[in-house]
């Protein structure tokens, strides 16, 4: 009768003995990371040339090193998201991609940053032309205090993309359509842009970025000032735009990274810790630090 004496009591109790709130011996954020070492798949295959080829990129503000030897390929027409705790360097790294850091005097960028095989930090590089190819959308919607029409038309005008008013009209309409804003604003193109809702303003900024036919769009937390519905619209827009553009998005919302991006890159204290397919990062990340961050163990 007692040949099958179970150890059930011990088993059910085993779980309860575990402290509900465990105190880890060392905090995950204290992990020492080997410089220049990234797990996962930071590089594109040999078959297709990447849009951005970034090698051994370091950035320092004076004596502070904000980016430590990062190498990464950004593929054509992919949406890649940069995630990581505040101060991890993701925005600094993003701003290197169209030399937005140039305006900061103490900021020094080293390493190779190639856009379609061309070094974007070479001294004779035309930065204005670079920024037309690599557009940017910022955290807070920042439309010019002008009409909706003029906001979108400004870029094409200064870059000489339109010769006639009818051409300019066409660019404005197309850009607003792509940004999913046309139907909402077509009857009031002369209205001042700052009177729009936050979500509309952000989509206007995206339309403004699209208007100069960029190849890459950088987005620095584009939805952090928007409500959920406006966020959903911008995210929908990102998915649609990925057919024609390469998109790099910095976000604090991990759910957003999971929803919109093909690949996810995890930054930590200036290191690029892991780059992998988004599917993998959110179900089975390779690096312990990525795991800790996306599961809410620190951040």
């Amino acid at each position, binding site marked *: 009768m007692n040949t099958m004496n*179970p150890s059930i009591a011990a*088993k059910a109790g085993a779980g309860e003995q575990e402290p509900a709130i465990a105190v*880890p*011996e060392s905090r995950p954020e204290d992990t020492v990371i080997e410089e220049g070492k990234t797990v996962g798949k930071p590089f594109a295959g040999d078959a297709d040339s990447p849009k951005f080829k970034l090698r051994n990129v370091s950035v320092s503000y004076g004596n502070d090193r904000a980016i430590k030897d990062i190498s990464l390929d950004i593929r054509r027409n992919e949406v890649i998201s940069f995630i990581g705790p505040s101060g991890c360097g993701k925005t600094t790294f993003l701003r290197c991609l169209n030399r937005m850091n140039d305006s900061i005097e103490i900021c020094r960028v080293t390493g190779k940053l190639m856009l379609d095989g061309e070094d974007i930090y070479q001294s004779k590089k035309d930065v204005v032309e670079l920024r037309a190819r690599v557009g940017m959308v910022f955290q807070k919607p920042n439309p010019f205090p002008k009409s909706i029409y003029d906001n979108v038309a400004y870029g094409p005008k200064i870059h000489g993309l339109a010769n006639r008013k009818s051409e300019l009209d066409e660019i404005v309409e197309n850009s607003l359509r792509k940004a999913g804003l046309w139907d909402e604003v077509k009857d009031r193109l002369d209205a001042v842009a700052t009177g729009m809702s936050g979500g509309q303003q952000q989509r206007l900024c995206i339309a403004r970025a699209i208007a100069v036919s960029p190849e890459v769009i950088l987005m620095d937390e584009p939805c952090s000032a928007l409500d959920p519905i406006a966020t959903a619209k911008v995210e929908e827009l990102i998915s649609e735009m990925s057919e024609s553009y390469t998109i790099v998005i910095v976000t604090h919302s991990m759910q957003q990274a999971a929803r919109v991006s093909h690949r996810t890159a995890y930054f930590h204290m200036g290191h690029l810790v892991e780059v992998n397919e988004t599917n993998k990062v959110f179900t089975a990340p390779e690096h312990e630090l990525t795991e800790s961050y996306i*599961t809410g163990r620190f951040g």
Partner: protein
Amino acid sequence: MPKSKDDMYGDHISHQFNDDLANLKNDFLKMGGLVEQQTIDAVNALIDGDGWAADEIRARDRIVDNMEKDLDEEATQLIARRQPAARDLRLVIAVIKMVSDLERVGDEAKKIAKFALTLAEEGHAPRGYVEVRHIANHVTTMLNEALDAFSRLDSTQALKIIREDKRVDEEYQAATRTLLTFMMEDSRNISRCMSVMWVLRALERVGDHACNIAENVIYMVEGEDVRHTPVEEAAKIVGP
């Protein structure tokens, strides 16, 4: 950072999240303990010809069913409110799947209890009981170890259980052959032997469920789905 596997789910910024995951784990283990006990009791009731015990086991299946619903609800709430990711997500998803396995083990125990009752009413039928006892020992040990592997997040032990399942299948086939011989010897044995055959079948299924749980434990720990994968492939994922 070397971290013991015990606090794998316990160091979130949100204490409530820690508690939610710990509760899910503990409730799952409680349900596992109950169905394991149900299976053992059912086999004992069968062998002892104890109809009264068999009745009790069948009544207790209600508790198992309720635990299944409660665990599913807990898991649903966790997904809705916490949006778990990575290993937390794998824990919740694995629990949702393994709960079905436990519930089915409960049903198999209930089935065995039903045959225990029938056989008790028909009088003793010791034929085939040696085989029943043997397989029952084997599969309940597997279930116990599967729950243990879950509790300790031990994928090596989980792999051992998957390997073990093949042996259960062999034992089941051997037992079936033995019972067939009994039936051929004397046709009056057929009805009772058929009942015992169903009990063996139920026990073999318990082994399969233990195996499913083990596969889910490997998924939780290693992040790789090893279902419908040759065991040697699974062994590579688990590592030495």
